[in-house]
């Protein structure tokens, strides 16, 4: 079997639609490598997306796809995985899709521990519509709708997922690609709900308004801020405030939705045990 990741990508659709310096291409390449290493055939993969820059991720994937409505990628994915647990289901979302308009679906997919790998390209703003603030834009930062500084605090998506019940929670950045590759590979093997949050660059909107105007500025930002979880734990509280942990941050051993529902079907005589 070919372990090349090229077969997961639609090469004839390149170049990518996204702006120069955008992190999204790095994330889909990392996903393709993880799928290749695991040997999942493209026709056994369903990628669901919503709306926004990363909502176009499925345009470059040679897998099945649902390019759905804004914020609903996880809701479509829940139907797919609920009806056929044998499929590999990934939801590719931006911070708008997952954390903001789709926040309720995010909470409940994690609570159900349904076997979806949620990959969030978190670029801290709404890139597609011109750089407005989202539910992950940090307090005080600038966007086209927070010209005087964001009056709201942003979510820590990993903490939200952990509290809601996700059985695997990981964070990467578009700079730390090795960490991201390993996190995605582990997430895709987790039977339950996995979140892989990827801190991603948007120099055109977020960076330009927040003193990181070039792609290199943004890459350096992620390089210096992201710290592997083992090292992060040893930082002083003051240092921790300036950094964030990356890698697999949380694992919880509990049955996924399909395992639990299969027991119900067995008890009801609907499937053989």
């Amino acid at each position, binding site marked *: 079997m070919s372990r090349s990741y090229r077969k997961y990508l639609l090469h004839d*659709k390149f170049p990518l639609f996204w702006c120069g310096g955008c992190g999204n291409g790095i994330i889909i390449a990392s996903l393709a490598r993880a799928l290749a290493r695991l040997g999942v055939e*493209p*026709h*056994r993969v*369903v990628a*669901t997306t919503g709306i926004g820059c990363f909502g*176009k991720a*499925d*345009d470059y994937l*040679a*897998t*099945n*796809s*649902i*390019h*759905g*409505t804004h914020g*609903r990628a996880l*809701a*479509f*994915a*829940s*139907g*797919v*995985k*609920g*009806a*056929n647990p*044998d*499929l590999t289901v990934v939801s590719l979302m931006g911070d708008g899709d997952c954390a903001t308009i789709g926040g*309720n*679906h995010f*909470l*409940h997919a994690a609570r159900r521990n349904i076997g979806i790998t949620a990959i969030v390209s978190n670029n801290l703003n709404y890139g597609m519509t011109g750089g407005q603030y989202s539910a992950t834009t940090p307090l005080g930062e600038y966007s086209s709708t927070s010209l005087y500084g964001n009056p709201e605090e942003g979510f820590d998506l990993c903490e939200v997922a952990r509290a809601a019940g996700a059985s695997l929670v990981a964070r990467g950045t578009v700079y730390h690609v090795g960490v991201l590759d390993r996190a995605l590979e582990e997430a895709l093997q987790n039977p339950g709900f996995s979140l892989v949050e990827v801190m991603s660059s948007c120099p055109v909107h977020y960076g330009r308004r927040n003193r990181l105007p070039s792609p290199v500025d943004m890459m350096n930002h992620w390089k210096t801020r992201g710290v592997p979880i083992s090292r992060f734990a040893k930082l002083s509280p003051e240092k921790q405030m300036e950094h964030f942990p990356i890698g697999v941050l949380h694992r919880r051993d509990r049955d996924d939705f399909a395992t639990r*529902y299969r027991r*119900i*079907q067995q*008890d*009801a*005589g*609907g*499937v053989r045990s």
Partner: protein
Amino acid sequence: MSAQRSFVQGNEAVVEGALAAGARYFAGYPITPSSEIAEMAARKLPGVGGVYMQMEDEIASMAAIIGASLTGKKSFTATSGPGLSLMLENLGMAIMAEVPCVIVDVQRSGPSTGLATKPAQADVMMARWGSHGDHSAIVLAPSSVQECFDLTVRAFDLAEQLRHPVLVLSDAIVGHMREDVHFPEPEALDPITRRDPDVGPEEYVMHADGADGLPVPLPPFGSKYLVRANSSAHDPSGYPSADPGLARANIRRLHDKVEDAVEWISDYSLIGPDEPDVLLISYGASARTAEQLVVDPPTDSRPALLKLRTLWPFPDRVIRDTVASFPGVPVVVPEMNLGQIVREVQRVVGKEHPCYGYHRSDGQPIEPGELHRFVEDVVT
């Protein structure tokens, strides 16, 4: 399930119909007066290898049945007006991506929370036009418990044939009343099942019509075929495209596949005398009131009833021909809203023909006595 007579509720008959049609996936959010459908789906689906998922809201419910249907499982949901309002977003997705699924709306009084949870028939236009953008709609309206079963079976067939979401527009009266109902032998039903495409994965094009003029078969996720279900404007393969020509062809095709099928989608019945003095046109619970006037007419009137079981696509020809067969006979359209189907009937019969709506919008059923008094005024 073997053939049997049962005394059940309309909502229960919906679930029996869905199971008989081969439905194996339900996602929903409970709401009165539809909740019995969710409860019975939750009870019965696991025993036939199916899945019940209780979602966080109706937006997710609609998304989930689309996702499940794309895996090859016949899928449905049930709700009432407030929930249908939320489902409209992804109803458009099912239309755009041509994903078969069935939505049951057990109507209740609005607007908003309204007279929770009293009956109404005021979602007729929402069912037709609620989702944004140009599109068509397939909407069936049962008026009895038997029709709850029969029309749910038919809804799944139409959804599969036309690869389009189908609404069963029930109401709180029909959903909660109990009647004698005949569940046929499973073999007698012969529901339409998904079949494999006629061509291999390389040649398969998802948004195209077959030799029979109907959309090509939809292979399930996980097969050798790759399926791209796309809410955005797309080319026939499902890949996004902003080309105006492709958009025009796609929107036309999605619209016309339903509108052009109006003759075989239309389901109706005409009862009453050969020479009526008034023609009642109604549907759902109000058709039962109208039926009462026909089967037990007051001594001074001879009403006939055209009962519509298909509301959308609107059966223009049926209305036109029926009205033309009774020259000069006035038309009365009783419905539990302030006038939705009556406007369609008036559009079809023209301004010259006497056509009146009888409307009630207070959460109460139209009673035979009040309808009779109104008809009397019209006739005299």
